[in-house]
């Protein structure tokens, strides 16, 4: 999977036609084969752009910052990224007519060690759902399946899970990198930082991390697209996807197989309801 040339051509053409002000893509770090996001503002810089299976980050995140706000943006999205873009469109955070989206039919990306990312192996929508132009061969329809690690953890005892997560929350340093890297965390002021929430608990403690991460994962429940920007950003290497994937599984299995960002206009599982929703857990 290498679309470097195509993407350079597309970006160059877009600049030449004056269709975009900025292009969000990937460039090499300069010291190894890994990549970092880059914002290209001029046609002469497009040669920096690359795209291959090391293009891991979800660039949709960059739509929430001032560099791109109210500008005409060209953007590369993989399948998972496009779902988060879909949610941003639905939640009126970006305007479709200001975007030029290069969609990728993604073959899966690899981590820094060169191993295929776990979320790519379980990916349900590898092809970009929102796109003006598609690169790559579209995939056949895949079926949702529960992650193996979720299954494993869920099948452990309650005490084991408690011990496991106690360690997770203990190791959280409340740096909020997860939040900053998440394309769907675009609030002007995060609720965790607001006075009401901090009044009784703002401290960097296990308890505070529990409170912050629980609230965060519930705000992403039914919306998280499993792009794993948060995990890549986390300096403590916390397995944050476990919380999201667990919620995703509960929601998928209980609420008419809901998956986040698949349909335009679908805000997430908490913003709709069905008469058939499970009721047996309520007395």
């Amino acid at each position: 999977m290498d679309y470097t040339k195509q993407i350079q051509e597309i970006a160059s053409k877009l600049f030449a036609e004056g269709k975009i002000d900025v292009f969000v893509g990937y460039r090499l770090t300069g010291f190894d084969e890994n990549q970092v996001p880059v914002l290209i503002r001029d046609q002469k810089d497009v040669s920096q752009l690359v795209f291959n299976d090391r293009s891991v980050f979800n660039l949709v995140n960059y739509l929430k910052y001032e560099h791109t706000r109210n500008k005409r943006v060209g953007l590369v999205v993989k399948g998972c990224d496009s779902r988060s873009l879909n949610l941003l469109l639905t939640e009126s955070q970006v305007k479709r007519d200001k975007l030029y989206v290069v969609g990728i039919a993604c073959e899966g990306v690899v981590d820094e060690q060169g191993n295929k990312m776990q979320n790519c192996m379980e990916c349900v929508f590898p092809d970009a759902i929102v796109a003006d132009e598609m690169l790559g061969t579209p995939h056949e329809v895949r079926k949702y399946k529960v992650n193996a690690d979720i299954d494993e953890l869920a099948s452990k005892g309650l005490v084991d899970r408690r011990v496991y997560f106690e360690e997770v929350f203990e190791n959280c340093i409340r740096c909020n990198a997860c939040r900053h890297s998440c394309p769907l965390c675009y609030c002007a002021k995060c609720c965790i930082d607001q006075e009401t929430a901090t009044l009784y608990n703002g401290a960097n403690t296990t308890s505070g991390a529990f409170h912050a991460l629980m609230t965060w994962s519930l705000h992403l429940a039914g919306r998280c697209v499993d792009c794993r920007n948060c995990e890549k950003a986390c300096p403590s290497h916390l397995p944050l996807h476990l919380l999201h994937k667990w919620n995703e599984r509960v929601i998928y299995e209980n609420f008419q197989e809901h998956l986040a960002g698949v349909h335009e206009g679908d805000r997430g599982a908490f913003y709709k309801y069905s008469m058939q929703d499970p009721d047996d857990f309520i007395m």
Partner: protein
Amino acid sequence: MEAVANNQLVSIEKPEIVAPPNWEPVIIGILCNWCSYAGSDLTGTSRIQYPPNIRIIRVPCSSRVDPWFLIKSLQTTADGVLVSGCHPGDCHYISGNYYARRRFLVTKKLLNFVGFHEDRIQFSWVSAAEGPKFAKVVAKVTEDIKKLGPLHLYKKENFEK
């Protein structure tokens, strides 16, 4: 789903701290104004007795209950939480409890996933006419939580009253 998840998640939370003698759990009851709060008032006017551990908070509708309240409760004062609203279809605000129901399920499962026993958070539909049911629900929740013992998980110990 219920069957699978429940099978996997059944295991007893072992109290690490043995409950001190005469320990009584604190249970927070968040009740919607139109059905469950009225139902709990009816329990009172009918003089139906139930365990005194529950502390009731009134909200307009079960849809007002942010999952965050439940997290906050468990993290600070409560050993268990009961949220109660109108029966499906009876919501005073037309559809509030349908939205709430979804959030409740996910919250319950998530807290269970990270190590809270299922019985720490319970939900019920109690109508304004179901005074006896409210007493039964409270008795059950209290009994469940007494069995589990005090909650210490993620408690903020130096909390200022």
